[in-house]
Each structure stands twice: as structure tokens, then as C-alpha cells.
């Protein structure tokens, strides 16, 4: 008997016994569904974290120089916290020192922020991120404006009380009105709205549009950071390679300025999109490690189900096996027939699992902000595993069938 004929017979059996096949395949189906769905969600999460979280929060090819890591990663001990608190703060003068000496082209932006309550025409907006920075900030964040303009270097130098607002702030304080030219008060100091930033959407369900940006020199700066002190300085390079060069240069300049001897550790930190992802990478690594275990349980159970159903199937078809042997089927022919059938059932289950897994990932992406990214390797793996499970599960029943004595088999009812 040729392989092709065995596959055709198996397909025929599956077609004529749809319900039985469906039940047999259910374990493998669940295992593979789980594999595809979880891998898709992790992959989706990966790209989400990379694009929206890391690049959106920090900026593309950008790193931040700060007193301490701006995204806490992994286990931060009390000791580490105390060490960070003892470090000197980053100051405007540090930024000036570095910017004056940098040779690598970079977009530099000084940044400090606080939470504030702002008012306009009797309306109040609480818990707004108040940002003091410079025009290059808009370049690094890649913000588009829906109205107005950003503030100019002249306005920065002149400490003008001007403000670019997030879309949600504009909506809340000036519903149905043009916010440009209107006044917003921060701690009693009036600012003039000169621009509105396009909606940025949400991150993990939190709005990214509840902020206002002012020149760091503007009158409200004393409410944001202590005098002369910054939260961090962002440096943006043209590409990932120059970013590394740039960072080495900034590190060298910073050590030089602080007079750190060789061998002493930095008393400042860098955060880039990669280091921001360290925490997430740890989580995804755990998931990827636990996943095979869960999928494995599904497949083992699925394999046992298939093995049992195949055993029943062999028992039911003893007479058929006898006839086939009488007509010239060798042991290997009978063995192959049942192995192929078992593998076909399992592969069918795996294929359905792939479909269901993709559907599940689609549903997740539809109801949550996570994009579904079906990994081609997980599809190949899922189908491959399905086929393997079927083959392994089929060995025992197929051997039983192959060993049957044709005379006994023909006589059975």
C-alpha cells in the first residue's frame, strides 16, 4: 500500500465519521488553540510594548539621562533606592555642559514634570501632567498638532507663559470652543494656549492626552521641579547605532563633569526603550517558559484521548482488518493505515486549533488594545506537534491492529 492511498483512506474515514473525529481531536485542538493564542498575545504584547510603551514613552532611538532609572525594572531593593536617593540630581547646568561638548548629532530636550490642577473659565481639570521642557521635546515625542503651534526658542528664552495642551485637556476645559488664545491658570499664574496636540490614545487603559507643555523657563517652573534641577534630559539619535555612540559620549561627559574616577560606578542612569522593556521581557520569558508545560498537558491529554478512541476503533473494525489481511494487507499496511488515520485526526484537530487560536487572538485584539500578531512559527509548530502527537498516540492501537490473526479477525462479530 502506498502512503498516498493510506492518507486517502484516512481522509475518507474522517469524512464519514465527523462527530467521532471531532471528539477525538478535541484535546489536541485545545492544546494547539492555547499555543497559538498565547504566542499571538505575547507577540502582540511585544510589539505593543516596543512601539507604544517604549518608543511612545521614551521616543525612537532615544535615551534619557536621569538620577535613577525612570522605569523601575525587576527587583529594586531598599538599598538600591537609598543609593539612588543619595545621588546628585541632574541639573540644567549638566545639560548645558553636555550639549556644549557633544560631537555626535543629537536632539536634546530638558524635561521636568509634575501633577497639577489647572483651571480655565471656572472649569477645573485635575491630575494633569504639567511638563516643563523645550521645543525639541515635540520632535522627540513625534507629536502632531491639530491646532496652533509649539512654542519657539525665543518664547523659551523670554520665559513666556504659553502652553501647548493635550487633546483631552482642550476638550475638557473648552468644550465646543477653539482653545487657541484662551487662558489656562496654573497655581494662579495665567498661561495662553497656543497649540493642541493630536490625540495619542491610551496606554494600558490610561489616557495619554491629559497633559500640558510649557517652556521650562515659564513662571510655573518652581511648582514643577526645584530650582535648577531637572527630571531628565532626553537625547535622540538618528538611528540605533549612533544612539549607542551618543550614549557613550554622554556617559563620558557626565563622568568627567562629576569627576568620577575610573572604576567608580556611575551616579546617574540611562533609560532607553530596551531597558524600559526589561520588566516586560522578564514577564514574557516566564510566559514562554510556562507555555510549553500548559500546551504539553493539552497535547498529552489529547494524545491519550486519541489513543483510546483509536483502540475502540480497532476493536470495532477487527473484522475489517481481517478482510483487509485476507485480501493481501501486510502487517505494515495495517500499521500504516491506523497510524496515518491517528495522525490525520490529530493534525485535523491541530489545524482547527490553529484557526481557533487565531480567532481567539483576533477577539483579544478587538476587545483590548493589544494587537494580534500570529507568529508563523507557532502555526508550523502547532500543526507539527499535532501530527506528532497523533503518530505517537497511534502506535499502540496500530500495532494491536497489525498483529491481529486474520482467521480470528474474520471470525469476529
Amino acid at each position: 500500500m502506498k502512503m498516498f492511498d493510506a492518507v486517502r483512506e484516512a481522509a475518507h474515514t474522517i469524512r464519514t465519521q465527523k462527530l467521532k473525529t471531532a471528539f477525538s481531536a478535541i484535546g489536541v485542538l485545545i492544546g494547539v488553540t492555547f499555543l497559538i493564542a498565547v504566542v499571538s498575545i505575547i507577540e502582540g504584547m511585544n510589539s505593543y510594548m516596543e512601539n507604544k510603551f517604549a518608543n511612545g514613552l521614551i521616543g525612537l532611538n532615544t535615551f534619557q539621562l536621569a538620577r535613577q532609572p525612570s522605569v523601575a525594572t525587576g527587583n529594586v531593593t531598599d538599598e538600591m533606592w537609598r543609593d539612588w536617593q543619595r545621588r546628585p540630581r541632574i541639573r540644567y547646568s549638566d545639560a548645558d555642559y553636555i550639549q556644549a561638548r557633544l560631537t555626535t548629532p543629537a536632539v536634546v530636550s530638558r524635561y521636568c514634570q509634575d501633577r497639577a490642577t489647572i483651571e480655565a473659565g471656572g472649569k477645573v481639570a485635575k491630575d494633569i501632567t504639567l511638563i516643563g521642557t523645550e521645543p525639541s521635546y515635540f520632535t522627540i515625542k513625534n507629536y502632531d498638532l491639530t491646532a496652533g503651534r509649539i512654542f519657539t526658542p525665543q518664547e523659551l528664552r523670554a520665559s513666556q507663559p504659553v502652553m501647548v495642551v493635550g487633546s483631552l485637556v482642550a476638550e475638557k476645559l473648552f468644550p465646543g470652543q477653539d482653545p487657541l488664545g484662551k487662558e489656562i491658570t496654573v497655581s494662579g499664574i495665567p498661561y495662553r494656549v497656543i497649540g493642541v496636540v493630536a490625540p495619542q490614545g491610551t496606554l494600558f487603559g490610561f489616557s495619554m492626552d491629559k497633559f500640558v507643555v510649557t517652556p521650562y523657563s515659564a513662571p510655573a517652573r518652581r511648582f514643577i521641579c526645584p530650582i535648577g534641577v531637572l527630571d531628565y534630559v532626553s537625547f535622540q539619535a538618528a538611528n540605533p547605532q549612533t544612539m549607542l555612540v551618543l550614549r557613550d559620549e554622554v556617559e563620558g561627559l557626565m563622568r568627567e563633569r562629576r569627576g568620577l574616577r575610573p572604576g567608580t560606578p556611575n551616579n546617574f542612569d540611562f533609560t532607553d526603550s530596551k531597558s524600559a522593556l526589561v520588566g516586560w521581557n522578564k514577564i514574557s520569558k516566564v510566559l514562554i517558559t510556562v507555555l510549553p508545560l500548559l500546551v504539553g498537558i493539552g497535547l498529552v491529554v489529547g494524545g491519550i484521548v486519541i489513543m483510546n478512541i483509536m483502540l475502540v476503533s480497532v476493536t470495532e473494525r477487527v473484522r475489517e482488518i481481517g478482510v483487509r489481511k485476507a485480501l493481501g494487507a501486510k502487517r505494515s499496511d495495517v500499521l500504516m493505515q491506523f497510524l496515518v488515520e491517528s495522525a490525520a485526526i490529530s493534525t485535523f484537530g491541530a489545524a482547527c486549533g490553529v484557526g481557533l487560536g487565531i480567532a481567539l487572538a483576533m477577539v483579544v485584539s478587538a476587545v483590548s488594545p493589544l494587537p494580534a500578531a500570529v507568529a508563523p512559527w507557532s502555526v508550523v509548530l502547532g500543526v507539527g506537534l499535532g501530527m506528532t502527537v497523533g503518530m505517537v498516540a497511534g502506535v499502540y492501537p496500530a500495532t494491536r491492529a497489525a498483529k491481529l490473526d486474520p482467521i480470528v479477525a474474520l471470525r469476529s462479530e
Partner: protein
Amino acid sequence: MSDTVIRVTGLQRSYVMGAETIHALRGVDVEIRRNEYVAIMGPSGSGKSTLMNLIGCLDTPTGGEYWLNGQEVSRMSDDALARVRNKEIGFVFQTFNLLPRATALQNVELPLVYAGVPAAERRRKAAAALERVGLGSRMDHKPNELSGGQRQRVAIARGLVNDPALLLADEPTGNLDSTTTEEILGVFDRLHEQGQTIVIVTHEPDVAKHSERTVVIRDGRIASDTLNRSAAA
């Protein structure tokens, strides 16, 4: 190729059952030539079925020799026996033993599948075999859409499809009414006229009458081996 299809000498088959050894065949000698039509008869327990299993290469003897179409098959391995069954023997069973979910054509194709014949040739040969038994118009019917007589014809077509040296029928009319029995025996007669060697195992004298020669088994030995008058005439 010799004129002898079956040559059996001193054939023995015993079964060990616990402490007891049962001698089902105690030394059988028989020779069947090409184009003979032989009936094997005998009461139940006579060893008739054992002889049929041995002739059909489903079983191997514990003593004696069996030559089928010029090959000694009594010492063959399982796989070699499977090949012999496939090429040299066409089985017809009492209960038809068709695959219920396959069409008549697919059932007839089955021995060719195991012979490794390509699909197109398989189809052609199977269709020709069905034409030979007068079922050319029912190829795509499944067994449950056919009458008992038609089912047995499908089974006969399946037995013939590989051009076997021997058509071996085990009580082929045991499940059929008398009209249909005549119909099926008519098919055997026609095949015999076309030169097919046929061995039919039966306990019905009416069926045995259609053959040329009747071998009667009793207590594991040949009790009589006679040419039938009607056939001899």
C-alpha cells in the same frame, strides 16, 4: 507453469489448548488442477474450515507441504503469505465482508491497493471485474444500497480483480435465499467456463452439485474424493 494449482501432501494442523493437543487435520493429500471446480464438504468439526484456512494461506500447517501455483507456501513468513493471498487467491465469504462505507468500486479496488497498482489502472480493472459479474451499472453504490445477491457479486468481483490462480469461496450462499443462491452459483459456473479454478467450501449438497468434484473431510482426513456425475457426464 504447471497444470497443478494446489498440491497438498500429508498436511497436518494441530492446536495446543492448555494441556491438550487437538489434531484438526491429520494428514491430508489433495491435488487440484487448473480450471477445476471443487467442492469441499464435511460436517462441522471435521477440519473443513482448517483446511480452507490453510489453502487460503491464512494459516500455516504444523506438518506436511502445501504448494500453491508452483510455490511452497507452507513455510512462508506472514508478509510473504500476505503477498500470496493478494496475488494468487480470491476470497469469497459467507457474509460478503464488504467495507460498508466504501462504494462497490472502492471495495473491488482494495486488493489492487495492496498490490500497489496505480489509481487509474485500479479503477479500470475494478470496473472490468464488476462488469464480469454483471454489476457494471452499480459501481458507485454502497453495500447497504445493494441486495444480498448483488453484494456477493461485488465480493466475487473483488476476488477476481487480481486474476488469482484460485477463487476460494467459503459458504458463499449461506446467507442467501434459494433464488439468489442459484444466481450466484450461476456466476461461479460462468467463471468456471471461462477457465477460473474454483474451490468452494460448503455443507449444502445442492451447492456441491454445481462443482465437478467433491472432497469430503471427516475427522481431519479425506473421507471421499469423487467426481460428480453431472459434471463428469
